[in-house]
């Protein structure tokens, strides 16, 4: 039997890896991929807790998280394409016009 703490540790680890990706990578597409990793870590945590308490609510919330992630990935990538057309660069440093 796998203790639930293992699943939570794994979820935390994935979340930390995703956050490290968001902070460390300077390429907007890899940034969005790291955000997807974070969302999946949260999904794992939801399903683990849902199983722990014997309800299906964890799985239902997972569907909503997946749907939101899909919509966010679609719009995010559309924004990346529009930005790329503007500046020909995939680095977030190229879009710092509003910095003081």
């Amino acid at each position, binding site marked *: *039997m*796998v*203790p639930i*703490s293992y*699943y*939570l540790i*794994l979820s*935390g*680890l*994935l979340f*930390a*890896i*995703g*956050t*490290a990706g968001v*902070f*460390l*990578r*300077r*390429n907007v*597409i*890899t940034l*969005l*991929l*790291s955000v*997807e*990793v974070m969302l*999946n870590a949260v999904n*794992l945590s939801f*399903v*683990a807790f*849902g*199983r*722990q*308490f*014997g309800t*299906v609510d*964890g*799985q*239902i919330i997972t*569907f909503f998280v*997946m749907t*939101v*992630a*899909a*919509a*966010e*990935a*679609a*719009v995010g*990538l*559309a924004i990346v*394409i*529009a930005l790329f*057309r503007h500046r*020909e660069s*995939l*680095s977030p*440093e*190229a879009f710092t016009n509003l910095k003081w």
Partner: protein
Amino acid sequence: MTFDLLLFYLFAAITVGGSLLVVAQRNPIYSVVSIVAAFCGLSGLYVLLEAPFVAVVQIIIYAGAILVLFLFTVMLLNATREDGAEWDRSHPYYRPGPTRVGGVLAVVLLGQLAWAISRMTGLSAGVGEAAPAASSVRLLGRVLFTDYMFAFEVTSILIIAGMVGAVVLAGKKGN
């Protein structure tokens, strides 16, 4: 080492390995392929948690649709050739400051998570031993369309908004 534990370690290794490769790869296409592998590992973990429908839906939606979208975007923008700003020190957009601060923040987050997890109590029982599994698709559908009806309808509006937004933002100008 029971079979369950062995499978958990296998899928967890695939997932963590894939996620680390996503963050550490230079080539964005390799990142996308690694994250596909990570999500397949995650799908295996869902099967272990007795949520087969979520596992299959994860593959269909994430690995089969969202990541294909990422792959198309990487190919369209030829991102493998555009990575000068990240790795080339003479590139005008190369700035090491945010990366270093980000590294410190990531380590701080890891420390915080480790501290929080070390204070967990009463969580060494096997997952799901307290309550029986209740995950037939029929039950999922019933709960989704009764208790979570409002969220379901709002999500459909969200998807339409996302679709329209993506088409407008990425479409050709002046069309």
